């Protein structure tokens, strides 16, 4: 087990900067998810940790050891590829003990470790089967087992569930989390799927355009996004962000939302945060954290489209070019064309500086 520290990491490919600057500490035994849309630099970061790419600037430390110039075969890193990269011309056993065979470990030791790993990953009955033509969940276990055989201090997983169908993903998420608990290794997990990051990771590092946006536990990232990007990216659907201007009144501070009218009076800490904004703000609230209220209160918007997805109903709202979404229970009676009035839960309001996109936090 080893902690990982990334210091001022930069990666350029010719004129293109894939990673602008990255500082991140990953704790010993922690499950860290690197989450972001494609092209955000998450895979580049992972490849540099594995040693497949050399950083253009900055340092990578495993514990106190600088990894610069350490070949990828010698870093003690287990890597699970997106397509698992199973050696399909070998049997499951030959895949599992590949690393140890190449290192010319004693036969007895290889047999002992293979048996232990096969037992842990329930591969015992499959050991002598050819690795080609196995199902995806078995391939994943073989890929993990093959790396685990080397007893790596760090496990890197590159979107291992992206080739799996949706129903199976839920099963594999649970299985992966279970495996991580068994191994108790530092795991770095690259994904663009927030559900995977949310359900498995101890902490999530959200990235966009080569820049680390926020690091935090899944709930921190969900509840208190550091900026507009994270607010929109996390959550399905993402946070509603409405352009507004803080307006002082007799009762306190409200946000003027243009055509939607004015928000309710903000509570004192949030009002203090809003006053720090130089110009306009983005008025944010989760679609899940709204109530329908009677006319005269809340924000009046027209129902444009209703998505019923089983457990919940997603309502798309519109007014004078301003759009928002709201999520209700499945039996909520709303029809396209209705004028509804939304009231975000008071504790759920988040404000962002319109100019910088950064969250305006209560101090």
């Amino acid at each position, binding site marked *: 087990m080893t902690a990982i520290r990334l210091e001022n990491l930069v990666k350029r490919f010719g004129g293109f900067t894939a990673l602008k600057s990255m500082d991140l500490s990953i704790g010993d035994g922690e499950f860290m998810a690197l989450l972001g849309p494609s092209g955000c630099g998450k895979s580049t970061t992972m490849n540099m940790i*594995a040693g*497949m790419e050399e950083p253009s600037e900055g340092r990578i430390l495993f514990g106190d050891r600088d990894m610069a110039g350490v070949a*990828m*075969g*010698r870093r003690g*890193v*287990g*890597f699970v*590829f*997106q*397509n698992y*990269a*199973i*050696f399909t*011309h070998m049997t499951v056993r030959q895949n599992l003990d*590949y*690393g140890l065979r*190449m*290192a010319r470990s004693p036969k007895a030791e290889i047999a002992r470790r293979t048996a232990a790993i096969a037992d842990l990953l329930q591969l015992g009955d499959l050991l002598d089967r050819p690795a080609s033509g196995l199902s995806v969940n078995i391939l994943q276990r073989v890929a993990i087992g*093959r*790396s685990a055989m*080397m007893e790596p201090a760090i496990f890197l997983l590159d979107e291992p569930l992206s080739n799996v169908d949706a129903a199976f993903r839920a099963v594999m998420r649970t299985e992966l989390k279970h495996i991580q608990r068994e191994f108790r290794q530092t795991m770095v997990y690259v994904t663009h799927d927030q559900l995977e990051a949310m359900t498995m990771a101890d902490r999530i590092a959200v990235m966009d355009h080569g820049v680390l946006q926020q690091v935090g536990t899944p709930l921190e990232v969900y509840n208190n996004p550091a900026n507009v990007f994270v607010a929109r990216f996390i959550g399905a659907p993402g946070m509603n962000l409405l352009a507004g201007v803080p307006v002082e009144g007799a009762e306190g501070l409200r946000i003027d939302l243009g055509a939607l009218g004015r928000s309710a009076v903000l509570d004192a800490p949030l009002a203090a945060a809003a006053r720090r904004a130089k110009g306009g703000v983005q008025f944010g609230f989760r679609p899940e954290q709204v109530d329908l209220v009677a006319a005269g209160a809340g924000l009046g918007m027209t129902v444009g489209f209703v998505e019923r997805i089983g457990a919940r109903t997603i309502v798309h709202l519109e007014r004078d070019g301003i759009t928002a979404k709201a999520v209700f229970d499945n039996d909520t009676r709303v029809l396209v064309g209705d004028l509804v009035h939304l009231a975000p839960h008071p504790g759920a309001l988040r404000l962002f500086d319109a100019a910088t996109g950064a969250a305006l936090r209560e101090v």
Partner: protein
Amino acid sequence: MTSAEISKDMPARPAAREADEGARLGLRLTLPAQLLVLFISVFPLLMQLYISLTDWSPLSGLGWPRAYELWNGFANYVDVAGDGRLWSALGRTALVMVVCVPVEFLLGLALATLFADSFPGKRVFYSILIMPMMVVPAVAGYMFYMLFQSGGPVNDILSSLLGMPVTVAWLSDPMLAMLAVMVADIWQWTPLMFLILLAGLVGVPEDQMKAATLLGASPWQKFRTIVLPRMKTIIIIALAIRVIECFKIFDTLFIMTGGGPGVATETISVYIYKITTQDLIWGYVAAIALVILLVLSVACVWAIKRMARKERAA
């Protein structure tokens, strides 16, 4: 019967009759092509068999259909068994094969490994490398004929390298002539080996190579455990192509040495060419060709069976 009619009453028919119908339609559709194949491969084979049992020659004054008038049973085949020149030509052909194919394979593999990675100027080198393959073999023959003259560039280069005058008569020395012929063959056909092997090498999944690296495999171990097994089929194909081609080696060699000095570089093709065009004993030539065909077929079947068995065992 048109297809519309067939499809109309198809459901009423039993499956067996339907399949029968399909097979007959298929036969009728492919009949012209089958006749053509029959004409260009089976017919000459039968003609060859027929002539090989006679003393027929184009100088005999008889058309080949009347060759039965010169029937001599299996006398030609008895002669083939005792033809020392034939068997030594076969031996020389085998020698060319045994030397050239492995050298071409190893060179091709080394070059392919080199070209699988990128390096500056790769495209230019690539074009230069495959150029020999595009040279007409006869032209290549003349090139090497001139290169290996006693006053030619090969001796010049050797002279300047060794710092003393070298005037080896390459093509007049039985051993050196063979060497020169092999050099020419290797020069011309290594590029083909290189191309085929490069295609195979590029097909090795990069992820698997990276995975092996991360598991601590050395470059040689990766080559042995990932690259070679994955390229097995393509290697067999490349080797098969070259073995067959080597067996037929003719044009370059014939222009360089004409099979000489004496019979020092006379291969099967050169020998058959000579007795066909100079001795004109076509009945005998037909017998030789059939024997070689038989020997090669047996060798091929044996090799394929062996490979298939190994494949199953692996």
